[in-house]
């Protein structure tokens, strides 16, 4: 099985490359016959592409979902921030140790209403990835998030978090500054809030690093996001002493949005455009925006104590799988 999204999509990406080249020729073509030929070629290749895509997406397994969730053209938090909110202003300080670019935070406006945005941020090229530490937040990232949660409470702003991380940073430095405490304290701060909190897993929901900012009243997953207690490769390494058996582990872990919904651990799935979010980021963002607005409206209408609501939501996790 393919090890990466690029490998899995190889044929399709080549086909799209070809279509791109022909389209470039097409623009420069003056001979009407040649033009018609090329145009037909494009149409037929695009047809073929759609058929392949349809085929690929008709039988997506947990491993393919994993690859899609990690796909590098997939929209990241700041892409959604740009298309869902206005007036976003990034706030950088953790007031403790340092700036962490694996988590971005700040207030923004959602349809006239201020919200506090917190999300993991991946990078698209090597410089960005290094700058973002591959979206693996250090303690200061979670402590910055705590600052934002508390600020949101002070100013009675709903909180929206975007979850997209392979894991929290596991390095020596992170350990030395208490990455475990930072993750736990971040969840704790979320459970203290009386304002509405919505989280949406938009890519990789990677274990502790993910749940650290996902203790929300409503937790959504994008259709092709994954959410897991351990990366499939790590699980395979432990179970079968073979990280290459990621695909089997992905299946065993049931890390897809569909499974999470079935287990009652997420509250809804946000549809993606055909072929997954990156093929139409604007539509993807519109769907995300609608889902967030709908979720906030639902929480507004509950009129309940949102802190208790959040408590009860997580209190139930797994209840139906126990006996006594």
């Amino acid at each position: 099985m393919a090890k990466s999204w690029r490998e899995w999509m190889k044929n399709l990406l080549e086909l799209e490359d070809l279509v791109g080249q022909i389209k470039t020729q097409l623009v420069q073509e003056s001979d009407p016959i040649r033009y018609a030929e090329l145009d037909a070629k494009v149409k037929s290749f695009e047809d073929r592409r759609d058929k392949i895509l349809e085929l690929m997406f008709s039988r997506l397994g947990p491993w393919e979902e994993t690859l899609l969730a990690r796909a590098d053209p997939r929209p990241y938090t700041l892409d959604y921030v740009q298309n869902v909110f206005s007036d976003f202003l990034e706030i950088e300080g953790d007031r403790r140790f340092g700036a962490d670019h694996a988590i971005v935070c700040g207030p923004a406006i959602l349809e006239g209403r201020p919200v506090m945005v917190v999300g993991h941020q991946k990078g698209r090229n090597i410089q960005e990835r290094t700058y973002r530490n591959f979206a693996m937040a250090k303690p200061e990232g979670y402590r910055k998030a705590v600052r934002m949660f508390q600020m949101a409470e002070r100013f009675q702003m709903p909180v929206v978090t975007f979850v997209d991380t392979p894991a929290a940073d596991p390095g020596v430095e992170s350990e030395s500054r208490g990455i475990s405490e930072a993750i736990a304290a971040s969840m704790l701060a979320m459970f203290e809030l009386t304002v509405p909190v919505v989280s949406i897993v938009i890519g990789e929901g990677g274990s502790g690093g993910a749940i650290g900012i996902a203790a929300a009243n409503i937790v959504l997953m994008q259709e092709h996001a994954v959410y897991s207690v351990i990366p499939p490769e790590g699980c395979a390494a432990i179970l079968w002493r073979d990280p290459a058996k990621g695909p089997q582990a992905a299946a065993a872990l049931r890390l897809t949005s569909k499974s999470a919904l079935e287990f009652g651990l997420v509250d809804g799935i946000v549809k993606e455009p055909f072929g997954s979010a990156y093929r139409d980021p604007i539509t993807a963002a519109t769907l995300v925006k609608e889902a967030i607005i709908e979720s906030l409206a639902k929480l507004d209408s509950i009129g309940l104590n949102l802190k208790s609501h959040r408590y009860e939501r997580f209190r139930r996790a797994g209840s139906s799988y126990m006996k006594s």
Partner: protein
Amino acid sequence: MGRWADLASPQISAGVFVQCQGCKKALFADEFRANLKVCSYCGHHHRLTWRERIEWTFDEGSFVESDADLAGSDPLSFPDYTPKHSAAQSKTGMTDSVVTGMAKLSTHVVSVAVSDFHFMGGSMGTVAGEKVTRALERGCEDRCPVIVFCASGGARMQEGLLSLMQMAKTTAAVERCRDHGVPYISVFTDPTMAGVLASYASIADVILAEPKALVGFAGARVSKQAQVTKAPDDFQTAEWVLKQGMLDRVVERRDMRATLSTLIHTLGYSLRNKEARIG
């Protein structure tokens, strides 16, 4: 030399030897137990079963178990989980990795949770999460301090996302204790790792640890690979974690009871006082 006994075994009879896991020296089994399974040569604190922990920490005979029958299932039909889980049950006589209940400590009533590493590495699945949560909730209901002994490799992989959610669930329960002014003390014993460390374990009001206990987020191999920064020699030991400000005291096993007792005496005062006022 006499017979050798398994160090983890609860039945260690006189005249039998055990081997220290720290210095590898031979120890008289009865002296070893009398010394609370701490090596008299090197001070190595050996892992305890939940029974030993409770017996050696709380007032004699005061422990009353709660939710003893609470048992889990195999919700993901995860490869090999059912047989592994059954084997752990047979080996330990526990239904899952955590035992909870009410106990007394120097006559103060406390709500208690104890993880036992011998049950699937003390890992936290649905049942462990539920039991810890209930122990914390009992503290709120009964207005008494909560003491949790941690010993866990982290969240239980075999229950997938359900295990991850236990991190949030137990954290929520800690938040409830804070709201209720209920003191919550956690004790890191060897080892306290990953998903357990990154949830209820690390946000206690006071955190104690046993000497040399392994305490960390990632396995040492992973975290050393992950960065250029060199790990210090005492990386992820309780003593190192203390220096990093993430815990409050490293306490020898023989002093644990007294330390906990002093803490719940001072921190639980207003709770008792308020209760007295209420009636």
